[in-house]
């Protein structure tokens, strides 16, 4: 039943927009409320595909199992003196498990937000979403938050399965430092995802470029090996990635019982990289968005 909508809704509209030249205070860079709504909506849609969580929880296991089997084939067990001299850890299985847990987040950061934008383009909701009264970075942030929640569920499944399959155990005291390091890394890669989303607006289908970037991060991040084994010229490149500092710190916390005071360098570096990645990501996205609005190609795909 319609309950006298006019008077109440006009009042409501006046309260928010006035409809007249009375500028209303609206967020200028990011609207966190809108981002939260978008994140919840994305999660609601994700929940309508429940099998995806299971598949993404199991799939990374298939990606890193070959490395474990290869390691076993080379060493005849699960430890190696050479591996220990390179990484500081003799047993490569927990080293690899932690590496792949972290890489799952990196992978979803690189692909996730951009894919969400791409899905918006294909499904036709990009233009309505870009017409909401919120800075457009809010949409990306909402997508990133949703992506991180779904990735966390999948990663929890992956981690739990790894503990059972390989009989691993980690100290409970490692949980807080690991979560802090993971959180800081995710923040940094969210800035990175802003930049990639800008490329998606401009180039529409930069899947080759995203794959390239993802693979380069994979090579430079110490997921399967220490960065010592990289060529000398590549090692400094590894140090501009949040995943390197996060992973080094996470392993020290989980495998060497390092506490937060021992991890301060990793934390400070992550904070610095977060600021840089966000600044660069926001700038690139805004330049790309301006370019597509100038070209008139925003809704095209």
């Amino acid at each position, binding site marked *: *039943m*319609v*309950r006298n*909508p006019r008077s109440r*809704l*006009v009042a*409501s*509209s006046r309260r*928010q*927009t*006035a*409809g*007249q*030249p*009375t*500028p*209303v205070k*609206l*967020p*200028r860079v990011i609207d966190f*409320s*809108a981002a939260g*709504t*978008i994140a919840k*909506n994305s999660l*609601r*849609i994700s929940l*309508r595909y429940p099998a995806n969580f299971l598949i993404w929880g199991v799939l990374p296991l298939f990606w890193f199992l070959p490395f474990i089997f290869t390691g076993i084939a080379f060493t005849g067990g699960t430890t190696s003196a050479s591996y220990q001299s390179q990484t500081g850890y003799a047993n490569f299985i927990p080293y690899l498990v932690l590496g792949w847990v972290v890489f799952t987040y990196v992978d979803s950061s690189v692909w996730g937000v951009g894919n969400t934008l791409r899905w918006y383009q294909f*499904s*036709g*909701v990009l*233009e*309505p979403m*870009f*017409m*909401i*009264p*919120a*800075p457009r970075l809010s949409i990306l942030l909402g997508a990133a938050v949703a992506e991180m929640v779904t990735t966390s569920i999948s990663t929890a499944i992956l981690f739990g399965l790894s503990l059972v399959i390989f009989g691993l155990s980690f100290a409970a005291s490692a949980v807080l430092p690991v979560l802090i390091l993971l959180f800081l890394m995710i923040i940094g890669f969210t800035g990175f995802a802003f930049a990639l989303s800008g490329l998606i607006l401009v180039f529409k289908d930069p899947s080759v470029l995203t794959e390239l970037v993802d693979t380069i991060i994979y090579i430079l991040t110490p997921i399967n090996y220490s960065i010592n084994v990289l060529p000398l010229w590549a090692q400094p490149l590894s140090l501009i990635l949040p995943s390197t500092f996060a992973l080094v710190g996470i392993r020290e916390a989980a495998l060497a019982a390092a506490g937060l005071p021992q991890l301060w360098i990793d934390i400070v570096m992550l904070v610095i990289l977060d600021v840089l990645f966000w600044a660069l990501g926001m700038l690139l996205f805004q330049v790309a968005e*301006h370019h597509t*609005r*100038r*070209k*008139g190609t*925003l*809704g095209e795909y």
Partner: protein
Amino acid sequence: MSTGIDIRKLVKTFTSTKRRFGIIPSGHVETRALKGIDFAVGKGETVGLLGPNGAGKTTTIKILSTLILPDAGEVRVNGFDVVRQPTQVRASIGVITGGERSVYYKLSGRENLILFGRLYRLPRAEAKERADELLDMMGLSKKADEQCEDYSTGMRMKIVFARSLVHDPPTLMFDEPTLGLDPAFAREIRQFIRTKLHNKCILLTTHYMNEADFLCDRILLLHEGQIVASGTPTELKRSIREHDILALHIKGRIARRPLEKLPGVSRVAVTPDVSGTSTLRLHVLDGAAVIRQLLDAVETQGAKVLRFEFEEPTLDDVFIQKTGRRIAEHGSESS
């Protein structure tokens, strides 16, 4: 009357890259989509922007809704500048563009509306209440909790329509709101615009002449980025009253040129019909004086006249008179 939309000397040129063999850039092609148009739409006024594909209608709406940046000119919506205050502009408008695809298929109609209510800064309870009201207005209350993927095209279009109203904006822009809908749904949408939104500032683009005639207080005829005529539908049609409109239904092929050379004939448009026949529409100074010569000229070309009639001018006739071409092939969609 206060102004909802105010456009002055709006210019937009699109540049695309020419590519040799589809890959190697070999230069640029410039398309001047808008060549300095001016118009305003007041509160409580419905203005129709009419023109064929490529005239600049959608570009205008996208500039107004901050999806495209203008090259030059001043564009204000509800007093806000589209370049400097885009967020305020978006908060004060409701837009339909992109058709029924632009809903979340995996959400229900109610969820779609609540989502956008929240994104348009309505408190949660108000967003829910507003969604219910709009679903009720659209006759979708019983289907409110079904996912949109199970809706018909018309039902999804109603959700798109309701979404544009969820925050009760003072200014609305509808880009082809009934395109692709079956006549019954289209009629419902038109009726809704006419009866429930009469206090809004509305800018509407359409290919359907009868829709523009039915809904609009004022019409702007847009051709190749310029407004070639404006006025109320009655004024526009009256402006070509010095001409008779003759419609000839013919069988067989016909060339326009010999007919245009007949005395008093100013415009000739040929529209092929589905059944293999064609309809010739001619603007003539004195229909009665020229009809005999006209019938002879058609039959000389080997075509057969099935019937002919004098017609009241339509907005399409006005457009033909001003530009020499029709607005749309489907200008006569039934209402």
